[in-house]
């Protein structure tokens, strides 16, 4: 391996990710790839949702592109994106020094704790669609929420036998703090002249149009029902992860419908409950079958 020497100055976006990979790998995490199904948050990755179940120890870290259709701002807002990256570390069981590890990981990417005010602010987490909840914090750096920290208590309606600690870094925000920039599109992506905006700005504009104006809602509604039925059928067949893919799809379809503004307040709860039912069924299938 050609030795990798960090460039001087703040780390680039991609260097931050690589640094976190090395950091968490050193903690025994498997460094996984993002899941290749559109989803709203890294928690939906089966390496979190499914592996958080059951008693087997598990440590994993990965990046997850997170699609939040409603958060699109046509590439005009310096802080809001409908597509961004989460860095997720999951440690089961939660180790005793997990908070210290998080802080050390900040050290690693260049946030000096003696100069920056890092805080753990209450944030109880709940995912109604995943039938999951946990307790934890937002982690603030100088008033900016840069991570979320959750001790999982329940996932897919099943109490966690061996509670995991889940750390989710908002990579863009973290990078903005590290690089001291005000506009996400101005982030130095690779330390060699490419900015975040060079890569993603056009997509933000186009997906905002897609999410708010263009996506075919009739189709999305049909596909939601399809994913629901397919998930149920696959659960019956006992294939947990393929079934869970359909659950993820249903969730994302719901998010798209929501962004398109065609779900009434009354219908919302129903959609969420339907996705939760899928998540629960998948969790049962995962636990039920022998690994």
């Amino acid at each position, binding site marked *: 391996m050609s030795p990798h020497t960090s460039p001087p100055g703040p780390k680039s976006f991609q260097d931050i990710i690589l640094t976190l990979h090395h950091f968490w790998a050193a903690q025994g995490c498997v460094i996984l790839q993002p899941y290749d199904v559109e989803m709203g948050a890294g928690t939906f990755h089966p390496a979190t949702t499914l592996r958080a179940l059951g008693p087997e120890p598990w440590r994993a870290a990965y990046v997850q592109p997170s699609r939040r259709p409603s958060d699109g701002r046509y590439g005009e807002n310096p802080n809001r994106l409908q597509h961004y990256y989460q860095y997720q570390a999951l440690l089961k069981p939660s180790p005793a020094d997990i908070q210290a590890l998080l802080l050390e990981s900040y050290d690693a990417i260049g946030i000096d704790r003696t*100069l920056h005010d890092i805080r*753990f602010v209450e944030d109880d987490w709940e995912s109604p669609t995943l039938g999951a909840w946990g307790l934890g914090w937002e982690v603030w750096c100088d008033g900016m929420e840069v991570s979320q920290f959750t001790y999982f208590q329940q996932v897919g309606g099943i109490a966690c036998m061996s509670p995991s*600690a889940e750390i989710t870094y908002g990579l863009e925000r973290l990078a903005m703090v590290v690089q001291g920039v005000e506009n996400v599109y101005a982030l130095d992506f690779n330390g060699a002249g490419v900015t975040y905006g060079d890569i993603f700005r056009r997509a933000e504009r186009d997906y905002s149009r897609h999410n708010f104006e263009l996506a075919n809602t009739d189709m999305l509604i049909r596909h939601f029902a399809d994913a629901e039925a397919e998930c149920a059928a696959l659960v019956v067949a006992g294939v947990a992860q393929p079934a869970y893919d359909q659950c993820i799809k249903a969730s994302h379809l719901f998010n798209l419908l929501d962004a398109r503004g065609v779900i009434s*307040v009354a219908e919302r709860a129903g959609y969420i409950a339907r996705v939760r039912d899928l998540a629960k069924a998948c969790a049962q299938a995962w636990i039920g079958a022998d690994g």
Partner: protein
Amino acid sequence: MAEFFLELFSEEIPARMQRDAADALRDICSWVFRNLSPQDVKTFYGPRRLAISLEIAMTKPGGVAESRGPRDSAPEAALAGFLGKHAASRHELITEGGYFWLRRDLSPTRAADIIMGSLADALAKFPWPKSMRWGQGENFTWVRPLRRIVCLLDGQVVPLKLGPITASDITEGHRVHAPGTFKVSSASDWEKKLLAHYVIADVARRVGKIGDGGRTDLDELGLELVQDANLLYEVAGLVEWPVRLFGKIDPEFMDLPPEVRELSMKINQKYFALRDASGNPAPTFMFVANLQAPDAGAAIITGNERVLRARLSDARHFWDQDRKTPLEKLLPKLEKITFHGKIGTQRERVERIANKAENITSLLGLMGEAGRDARTAGLLCKADLVTHMVGEFPELQGVMGGYYASMTHGKLVGDAIKTHYQPKGPSDSVPKGNVAVSVALADKLDTLIEFFKIGETPTGSGDPFALRRAALGVIRIILENDLRLALKPLLDHDEKLFAFIMDRLRVKLRAEGRRFDVLDAVLSAGADDDLVRVMKRVDAVTEFLQTEDGANLLAAYKRAANILRIEDAKDGPHKPEFVLGPLPMKEAEELRDMLVFIERETYDNFTEEKYALVMAAFAKLRTVLDAFFERVTVNTPEPDLRRKNLQLLARFQYSLSRIADFSKIEG
């Protein structure tokens, strides 16, 4: 006596839970040590620790434990069972009063054993609002992972065990300024060493440092803190070593509505707003760091300013976007928002509110302009639900509608929309001004009427649609604005709903420590749906009852009522007719004449709601009543005279009943 000291050191405890947790800890210790003469209790709480110190006896005195066994005539089997249960042998028993008894001497209990036993048990059931498991998945739960326990009795470690943790005398200080652990030997040692390790253990000292902080910094800036006790305590729960810092707000954001700016600052960031010498919002915010940084906080300030800039940029964007579209244009979007499945859309709702608001203004005697304004405000009052700003900050609903409406429809309409959700709670103020009042009333009345119509009424503790709050709002708006309105027509004559509102009024009075028996008395004296009048009467009666005359009258009333109840049971009822002509006793005649006089005199006053005059008139009854009861034997053997006396008493009751049913008044 010895000092007991306990520190429960955990990962960060939610600020909002800390004070209750300290109280719970105090309660637990007081109970567990109840036999150890606990005293000098002091609690500490903060982001990572909950602690208590108190003086207790080192031992609980001994005594005798006595258990009654079966009857001495019981079969052997029953006796064997008793012995087994207590692990006793036959020769330990005595018989007494036909029963077997087991009496055992209890040796004194060491405080340390109580700590390891009862206290540990009680702490394991600590009443956190939410608690959690962690690590290897033990069943022990805590608000966040418990990492250390210091447990000292008279300076010695008591190895209390909670879940995975065993107590020691080791604790930690500030994460950054003083990493690592240290030993403590007592509460004061702990507090002193913590200070040396950059942790202010006492919340009051932290609050002081945050809220006042010596003030020199604020004085230098010439600014004043906008007082917010909740925020103060919340922030004190977030820091161990509070450091006040000040950041600039970019001028471009100073023309945003202050509510927007300050909500964003407070809710999202826990920043304090500041005012300049003239009381105007200052382009500076205060915040509290948990760090004494070597650059005097320069990096922290830069970071916080950046965050606020980002937040306010977002708000500014919404503000600019929203102002491009008049609220009217948003009405069609309300058609897509279901208010409630059985009630309909928000669009239908605002149509009703508009009608009702206009109706109320006309009932209030206002014509033309005001009615139109009320209608407009009613129609637009929910339109901000589909604005960008309210989508982002739901807390600003109404407020934003107010701003947006005032731009195109003037201040009256704007204010009406802004305040139409008020009062949002018992401590919130009520709308003022006819238009605002009409809309706020209409909004709440509509909610009440519609939910009652579909049967979604509150049950027990369940009130998902906050109808109780709405009812209270109706009451307060009416009363505090002195609105003279017949309420029932506004409720579509829904008697159940009227009763519900009256019940809320009763609860309100009780909560205010006022006599709700008087309310019942007044209401029983004649159905009235003009709340202002009802309360005038309540106030008059209440006030009157507090006078000696009033108390006397009440006593007389009760006496009369007592007599009548007994005699009516024999041959009643006795009608409250005036007995004309001379009566054998002049005291009876005087009472009758006084009643006639009072009734005549108070008739107009009552109608004109001059309740003080009414009561003053009744006050005059005192002497004649005293004389009557002193001299007249009501239950005289002569049937005619007895009837006349009883009719006179009934008339006395009747006269009073114009103002209140005194039988409902406790006394």
